[in-house]
């Protein structure tokens, strides 16, 4: 069994490798091709959202959160590309040996990390026969349905990291102009494909304030320096459907690569599609946030706000609460999804 010092060293090595990869232009190009994000989107992901800024003390606290198992098999089914770093770090903190099966859609970063580590205790595989695994545990990142299938087939414990979304709450104590850059960042990162991505923003105050926030957000997204990547045909179809539906409900601001829909206070918190689609909903009273969130609360992984203390009384306890602009920049403090127990 490794000591805390040894585990910390092993995880620090992973972060060191990731820092080197942040400067790898050829990897960036591969990520553009595999993710469909713009080059600026990939650069933003690598420079601002890859969790490489943890200190040795941070990492020591991180590894203390994990027990010990002989082997962790990491199955990356569907996740944003930077998520592979934390997934491998969590696995390495816990497992003597680690097997990584990258996502078939986006294998580049996970593969690059493992190859650069050149560690005999971390192997890269293209497929995993779950029912043949007899030791350690499995960490699966993907849809609930995928996780359920692995659980049904596995003979060892399966730790599932399901899909989710981020919501925000802007109170009356802050002007939208003060948080606009943060809101923009929370939305544009990974084109909202992350489980921490902001998709529904509650605005304390009446419909007029919600519309003001929606307009401001629309202007900010129109002038963003990070272009959106390509949407698939299906994603474009979902965008049309969302835009037309929300036009029936309230105001819709459509940019060349985003849609901001503003809904009145009695509208349900319908979750927009990914690809820079945001629902801004008026909430006259704070308690309305809780009731509007109820049908989707179990999927809320991130809760961004200008008033974290009050927000913790409104949002689901399993969410990561953070300042607006920090939703997709969580500290390296354990599993990214706090719903995982």
């Amino acid at each position, binding site marked *: 069994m490794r000591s805390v010092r040894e585990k910390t060293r092993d995880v620090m090595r992973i972060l060191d490798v990731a820092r080197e990869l942040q400067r790898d232009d050829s990897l960036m190009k591969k990520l553009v091709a595999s993710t469909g994000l713009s080059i600026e989107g990939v650069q933003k992901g690598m420079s601002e959202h890859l969790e490489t800024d943890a200190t040795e003390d941070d990492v020591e606290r991180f590894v203390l959160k994990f027990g010990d198992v002989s082997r962790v098999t990491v199955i990356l089914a569907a996740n944003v590309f930077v998520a592979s770093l934390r997934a491998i770090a969590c696995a390495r903190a816990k497992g003597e040996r680690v097997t990584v099966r990258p996502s078939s859609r986006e294998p580049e970063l996970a593969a690059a990390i493992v190859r650069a580590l050149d560690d005999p205790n971390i192997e890269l595989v293209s497929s995993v026969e779950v029912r043949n695994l007899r030791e350690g545990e499995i960490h699966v990142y993907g849809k609930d349905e995928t996780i359920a299938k692995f659980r049904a087939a596995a003979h060892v414990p399966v730790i599932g990291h*399901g*899909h989710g979304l981020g919501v925000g709450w802007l109170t009356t104590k802050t002007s939208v102009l003060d948080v606009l850059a943060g809101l923009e960042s929370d939305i544009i990162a990974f084109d909202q*494909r*992350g489980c921490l991505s902001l*998709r529904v923003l509650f605005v304390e105050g009446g419909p007029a304030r919600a519309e003001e926030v929606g307009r401001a957000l629309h202007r900010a997204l129109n002038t963003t320096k990070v272009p959106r990547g390509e949407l698939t045909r*299906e994603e474009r179809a979902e965008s049309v459907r969302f835009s037309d539906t929300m036009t029936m409900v309230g105001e819709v601001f459509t940019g060349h690569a985003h849609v901001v829909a503003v809904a009145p206070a009695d509208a*349900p918190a319908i*979750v927009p599609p*990914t690809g820079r689609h945001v629902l801004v909903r008026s909430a006259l009273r704070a308690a309305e946030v809780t009731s509007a969130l109820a049908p989707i609360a179990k999927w809320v992984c991130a809760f961004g706000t200008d008033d974290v203390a009050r927000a913790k009384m409104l949002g689901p306890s399993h969410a990561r609460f953070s300042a607006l602009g920090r939703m997709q920049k969580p500290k390296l403090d354990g599993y990214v999804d706090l719903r995982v127990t």
Partner: protein
Amino acid sequence: MDPIDESNGLHDRVQAMVAAFDGNKPEPESPDTLACDIARFQARNIPGFARLCARHDVDLQELVSAADIPAVPTDAFKLTRVFAFQEGEPVVFQTSGTTVGRRGRHIMRCTDTYDHAALAFGRRMLMPLMGGTQPPVVPIMVLGPPPNEQPDSSLTHMLSMFAHTMGSDANGQETYFLRDGVFDLAKLDERVAGILLKGNQPVLLMGTSFAFVHFLDAMGSDTFRLPARSRVMQTGGFKGKSREVSATELRREIARVFCIEEGDVLSEYGMTELSSQFYTHAGEDTLAGIFTEPPWAHVTPVNPETLEPVEDGKTGIARIVDLCNVDSAVAIQTQDLVRREGHGFVLLGRMPGVAPRGCSIAIDEMLGPS
């Protein structure tokens, strides 16, 4: 003009079109003209629809074709009031499925137009060659709950109206054979036996697809003989309510269990957000799954990205113009995949949701069985 008067005038015109169809007379006016007048009325009285027209750059004054009316997505019925009047909800039909905790709501001033149209087209499509009377009446049985168990279901309303209007002996006879979710096979058997004893008159048995699947499961390899020339009408999907069975297999199994021809197992396609229905003709059409429209409704497959009609023979999502939706949405946009074929269209299931490209939850995933 007062909106109520305007609505009444439009209802009268739609009902005149239905009456002409029922009486085998020429259409009193162009469906396009009527559809555009209804769209103008709706844009004046439903702010969301006015915004939708503006979004699609539709000049309502210049509108001459129903194909140019912006279609209201069915999701909108779950999220907002799609009704030309701000006050009151005289009749509300609700969808069974929910989105983030809400059911779709179709509000109507009254069901007169709905009833006239449903009856005229239902009679034409379901009853030919069955009854010797004019208009034809036959014993009708419903493999579903009575209206008091589902008062807000448009399907239950329609089946009840059919039983009441086209059924030959509904008074005093058991019509509904699903109560509190339990089939009463003994009563169904008793009713059919009585009919067989009286002279083998054909019957019409109607129900949802999932009700028939449960019925088939209950019957196993046994049969439940219906009188010769009887027909079965089945409708709706099964998601989350029973095992899923292909349309072909279900039709074949229904024909086997009830000892009728496969061509006499008809399908109905309708939805809460509509006031009109579509049916497969008995015979070749039902075997091929081709649905027929009444003259007051039309289904167009459109490209889901552009909402433009697809080329002939290509698959698209169903955009439906329904003149009977006078006070709600004369054109609706569904997510059902369809293709024009012959004089009608075939239904090809529902457009699949977007595959996630990250860990952000997809809308379809949230609407799944979990």
